[in-house]
């Protein structure tokens, strides 16, 4: 099966500056693809080319076989685009905003009230339907923007930093919405700098630096392709120092220490770095039990994507 989004040798230059260089990437149907990279890596340029807003200097990209160069209108039918800034009309009510964009997508007037109701319900803004858009919080506006990308039921959502500038609650809400949309069958291509979000929800990840893809794959694939010392957190009931000393003697453990915030009685948090395989990892846990240490929690921290990111990128910008 051919990929739903395919980018081939895509380049974008602004005068002498090459923002995107011979980029090759594919996104399969149903992927929740996280596109990460440092500032100036070329994420927004890539996304704008995919959204038919920016003409590529060379190369091409296809969405369900429609070329962004040759058939931008065909691409627009298939994508829902959300930019990294928040653009709404302040003199509109929430439902009017969606109604206007439904009209822009030529959706018949008769079908719009139901569509708007469904979308507002999906993004949990049905109770704000009659409110002016400018009265909404930033998180709500972002959810409304996301609803706007869905008015024509696109196959692919192209979102440029959808969680940027949101407070933690709004970020969690947007993240949950993306997962829900992915579950509904949407293919989602989104850029972000929040690695924990990517690690948590993405099925595939692409890391971009200086206009070039440095690696792609699922989190597991990235881990195996770019092995690094994984980090684990352990929560014990007691005997933290003793556990640290013991961990340091175990195979694969390269570093172990108590973590900050050990203030709750009966809870000792410690962290260790591990360079072994999964079998050796299970031995670590078994060994802790054998020492009579009461383990309350033993888990890998999500910073492993950070490690991969730091490992594959060199801090270059275009």
């Amino acid at each position, binding site marked *: 099966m051919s990929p739903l989004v395919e980018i081939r040798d895509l380049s974008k230059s602004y005068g002498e500056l090459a923002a995107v260089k011979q980029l090759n990437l594919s996104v399969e149907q149903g992927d929740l693809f996280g596109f990460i990279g440092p500032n100036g890596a070329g994420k927004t340029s890539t996304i*704008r080319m995919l959204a038919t807003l920016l*003409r590529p200097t060379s190369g091409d990209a296809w969405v369900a076989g429609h070329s962004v160069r040759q058939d931008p209108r065909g691409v627009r039918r298939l*994508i829902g685009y959300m930019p990294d800034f928040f653009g*709404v009309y302040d003199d509109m009510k929430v439902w*009017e905003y969606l109604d*206007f*964009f439904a*009209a822009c997508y030529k959706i018949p007037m008769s079908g719009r009230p139901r569509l708007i109701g469904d979308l507002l319900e999906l993004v949990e803004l049905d109770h704000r339907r009659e409110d002016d858009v400018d009265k909404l919080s930033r998180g709500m506006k972002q959810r409304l923007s996301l609803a706007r990308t869905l008015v024509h039921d696109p196959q692919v959502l192209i979102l440029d930093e959808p969680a940027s500038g949101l407070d933690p609650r709004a970020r969690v809400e947007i993240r949950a919405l993306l997962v829900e949309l992915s579950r509904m069958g949407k293919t989602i291509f989104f850029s972000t700098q929040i690695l924990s979000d990517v690690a948590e929800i993405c099925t595939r990840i692409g890391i971009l630096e200086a206009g070039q893809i440095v690696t792609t794959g699922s989190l597991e694939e990235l881990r195996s392709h770019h092995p690094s010392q994984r980090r684990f957190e352990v929560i014990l009931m007691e005997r933290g120092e003793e556990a640290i000393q013991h961990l340091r003697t175990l195979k694969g453990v390269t570093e172990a220490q108590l973590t900050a915030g050990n203030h709750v009685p009966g809870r000792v948090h410690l962290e260790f770095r591990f360079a072994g395989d999964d079998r050796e990892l299970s031995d670590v846990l078994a060994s802790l039990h054998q020492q009579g240490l009461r383990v309350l929690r033993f888990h890998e921290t999500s910073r492993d994507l950070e490690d991969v990111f730091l490992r594959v990128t060199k801090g270059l910008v275009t």
Partner: protein
Amino acid sequence: MVLKELRGRMRGGRAFVVLTVYLIVLSCGIGLVFLPVTSGSLAPGYDLAMRQYVGKGIFGLAVLIQFITISFIAPGITAGAIASEREHQTFDILRTTLLTARELVQGKLLAALSFLLLLLLAAFPIQSLAFLLGGVEKEEIVIAALMLITTSVALSAVGVFFSSLFKRTLPSTVLAYAVSFFTVAGLPMLLMLLITIASPLVALLFMDTSGDMSPVAAVFLVGIAWLLVSSNPLIAAVTTEAMLIDGQSPWVYRVPIPSSAPFGGVTDLPVPAPWIAYVAGYLLLSLVLIWASIRLVRRPEV
């Protein structure tokens, strides 16, 4: 797009204030002319000619106020049409929808024209006082309406064009008003200046020692004068009105030229009435500006 624009424009107090101030100014202006009729100076004698004269004056004043209002408002409501979408960062979102550049420009233009048409229609009840007094011919009403609509379309097209050209509303508004001002006030001044400067030059170049002008030179000069007269709405309107008062056809104006003219002994050169040239010329210019605006909006970012 039209519905969205009109919703935005009519919501809130701004449209109401504009409409109210405009109608107050119009009422006051017409009231000042109408006052002598009702206060008695003209009432008892039933001087038909004088009443018709006052009626014509009321109609002319109303058209002038409408014209000035349009000249002020049209650039203002259109100069931000596209540029404000860019400023509010909604332009990119619109461009990724199925809305075409033509629909976007047309929608913005039609919304602006709808509001201007509302202003013109709102004046009609006050303006119709002139019809009570008589003196206003139906040709004058039709010609005035056509010229006002043409001016609305042309100045709106100018605003939309600059709005498509610039990313910011400020330069777009400044240039739209500059062009509007030049069209309305600058051209008559330029015309007067040209006449002042060119008169001695014309005499020197085209007249012989006895003060006669060759027919070819006369036709040439009439052509230039006709173009200049037709290029300004006020001058075109006044000239057309003078033609009608003079009993000439509203379609063709006969310009007397030297008797030795090379047109089979015809001494009058027929030219289309200035209002026709104004309407045709400015509508054509509007079409060009609308086409250019669509091209600018469609232009992909490079």
